[in-house]
């Protein structure tokens, strides 16, 4: 019988998988053409079904990218390492566009035209062929699942990018404001070229894995307390921003460690963005692992989590369908996760994964422990007792940590109360023993009375009747 296998690969379009090939191997047995045709159609449908599922998953693959730059302040010849990395290592379909190019459309017919944007500093107020791309458009792009990598500099920060960043909670320093640290170097140039140390790197953001060697020369930003922002580089304690065009030092956008130099951000839709305030971090002189990791993270090529299976059942293995849950049942819950590490789906170890069972607020919030691990996934689980209150519960695992794509698995289930024959019987309750014993005693006494009543012969009555 003919056997079909299908494989899939990501097309060049955004978030679309297409059927790549059908390999047919001939086996022994049936060779009926109609059966083969039917089988092929069913297999095609099945593959399309798989494709439709897969296309809804977060993308771990290279996708369409637009690099937007302003040739007045950015010479792309200085960024060959970046471009080579994007094209050859990440294999990103890349379009390099001037900020005012007529081809620059981030939406076309209402659909996102790119998956990733890299926006270099621009001197112009807005980007787009007719200055028609505004901050709101970038925000819509981000909200639609697109990733945005923005770079500003003291001389190049457009209102488009500024408005977009402000909406997210990043406030880059105004035009001409640059970071200065008099405690490094000994001349005007060296004050503005700040060598960052481990103190300035926030590895807890989980975006970069090691302390990079960076000489920073650019702007700084203030951040809101938005927990969707993940600071990566922080200004040195003795630094501040000042306007290079004014001698007056009164206006300082950031002072000390309240200024940030690189920030990642991730929406609840798992779209990602990054901002850095110095384009020279990406040029050939400084292009390093830091930039690679930041690009990979922003384009959703690392730290992507995926749930492959969620399972819950009675402690003896009975499922909800077989035996619906009721109050105080002992249940076990399992969730299987995998991580895309830039190359493949692999197991991932967490010690802070939590499970909740809740009505309006959680009744249980329990830490999940690692149960097993295979070559590409890790299974976590916990056993728990259903609360003693019936209702419609949500079983959920929400994992939101800096730098990781957010996982949200929810299932709504009805938990029933005890049926009238599932409560303890009266003889299980010691109080009832007295009543049960008394009932039996009354029953026995009644039988004795009945027998005695039938066969009794009262001598006195009989004698008195005889005398009469």
């Amino acid at each position, binding site marked *: 019988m003919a056997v079909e296998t299908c494989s899939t690969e990501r097309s060049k379009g955004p978030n679309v998988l297409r059927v790549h090939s059908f390999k047919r191997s001939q086996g022994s047995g049936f060779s009926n053409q109609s059966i083969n045709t039917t089988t092929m159609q069913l297999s095609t449908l099945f593959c399309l079904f798989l494709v439709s599922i897969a296309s809804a998953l977060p993308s771990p693959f290279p996708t369409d990218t637009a690099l937007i730059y302003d040739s007045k302040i950015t010479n792309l010849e200085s960024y060959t390492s970046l471009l080579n990395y994007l094209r050859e290592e990440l294999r990103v379909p890349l379009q390099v566009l001037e900020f005012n190019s007529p081809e620059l459309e981030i939406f076309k017919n209402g659909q996102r035209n790119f998956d990733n944007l890299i926006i270099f500093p621009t001197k112009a107020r807005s980007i787009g062929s007719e200055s028609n791309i505004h901050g709101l458009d970038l925000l819509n792009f981000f909200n639609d699942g697109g990733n945005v990598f923005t770079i500003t500099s003291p001389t190049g920060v457009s209102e488009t990018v500024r408005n977009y960043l402000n909406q997210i909670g990043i406030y880059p320093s105004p035009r001409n404001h640059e970071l200065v640290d008099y405690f490094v170097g000994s001349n005007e140039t060296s004050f503005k070229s700040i060598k960052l140390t481990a103190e300035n790197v926030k590895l807890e953001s989980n975006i970069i894995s090691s302390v990079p060697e960076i000489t920073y020369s650019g702007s700084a930003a203030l951040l809101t307390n938005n927990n969707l922002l993940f600071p990566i580089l922080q200004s040195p304690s003795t630094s501040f921003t000042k306007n290079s065009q004014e001698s007056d030092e009164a206006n300082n956008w950031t002072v000390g460690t309240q200024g940030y130099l690189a920030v990642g951000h991730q929406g609840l839709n798992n779209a990602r963005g990054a901002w850095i305030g110095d384009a020279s971090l990406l040029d050939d002189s400084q292009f390093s692992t830091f930039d690679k990791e930041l690009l990979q993270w922003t384009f959703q090529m690392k730290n992507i989590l995926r749930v492959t299976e969620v399972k819950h059942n009675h402690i003896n293995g009975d499922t909800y369908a077989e035996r619906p849950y009721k109050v105080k049942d002992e249940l076990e819950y399992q969730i299987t996760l995998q991580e895309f590490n830039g190359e493949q789906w692999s197991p991932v170890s967490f010690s802070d994964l939590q499970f909740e069972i809740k009505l309006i607020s959680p009744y249980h919030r329990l830490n999940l422990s690692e149960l097993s691990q295979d070559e590409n996934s890790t299974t976590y689980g916990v056993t728990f007792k259903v609360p003693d209150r019936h209702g419609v519960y949500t079983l959920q695992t929400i994992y*939101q940590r800096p730098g990781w794509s957010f996982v949200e698995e929810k299932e709504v289930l009805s938990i029933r109360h005890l049926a009238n024959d599932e409560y303890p019987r009266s003889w299980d309750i010691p109080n009832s*023993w*007295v009543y049960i014993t008394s009932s039996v005693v009354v029953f026995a006494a009644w039988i004795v009375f009945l027998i005695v009543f039938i066969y*009794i012969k009262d001598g006195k009555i009989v004698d008195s009747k005889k005398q009469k």
Partner: protein
Amino acid sequence: MKIQLLVLFLSTVISAFKITDGTLKSSKQELGFFESDSLRLNSTEENLSVSFKIKSNTKPNQIFVKLTNENGIESSFKPTTKKSGESYISKLSLPFTKLPTLFQASSKLFVSLVIASEEDKYFETVGSIENTPYLISKSTYKPTEKFQAKPEIHHIFNEAPQTVDPSIAVVFSFLSIMTFFTLIVSWGFNGALNFGNFKFDLSHFAFIALIIGYEVTFFFYYLGDSIFTTIGRVAILTGPTVWFGSRLLNYLGELRVAGQR
């Protein structure tokens, strides 16, 4: 963070600036720079003042008073600076209510000066401030929610209903049984336990068995049989019971007429 604090404490950069007449002042206390004691704040009405004199021919480009809490979180304030002879006098007046709420809830704050120009630098911790527990309790600071593991919650189940101790139930059950035997014995003492009219008649035994059958039926109902099963059984028992019952009553009636009872 600890390293940052260490840096703050130890970071005295080679300095040509001379800082003199440095004071940390609240409404009730005044301390000079580098004193081991801390300035204590105990009221939201307090006003923190920092003043110092910088001996320099030119005005430094950077003059900040930096406050840092125990966790290394810092905030900088720019003092007003005026030239006075060959020096610059800097003053910062900061009402307690103008402090970041995080600092209002911090038990200790370190005060540092960051002064720099192209030629000279000065960065040193010059004193500290302590907020009293009373003042901290007045703070409205709420930590921002961060993505992290939340505290575990274990549902507290309702306690099982309380029941009497089984030994007490057994004692009272025993008393109930003893009451039965007392009744039987009392009947015996009063001569009620005699079977003078006993007659071997199957209809009598059948009637007694049917009455026991009713009791058994009710007992099975208690044990879990359905009401419909119970009604069915009672219906089956009713006919024979009426039949044998009438036979028995006839017998008793004959005894009464014969003067036997």
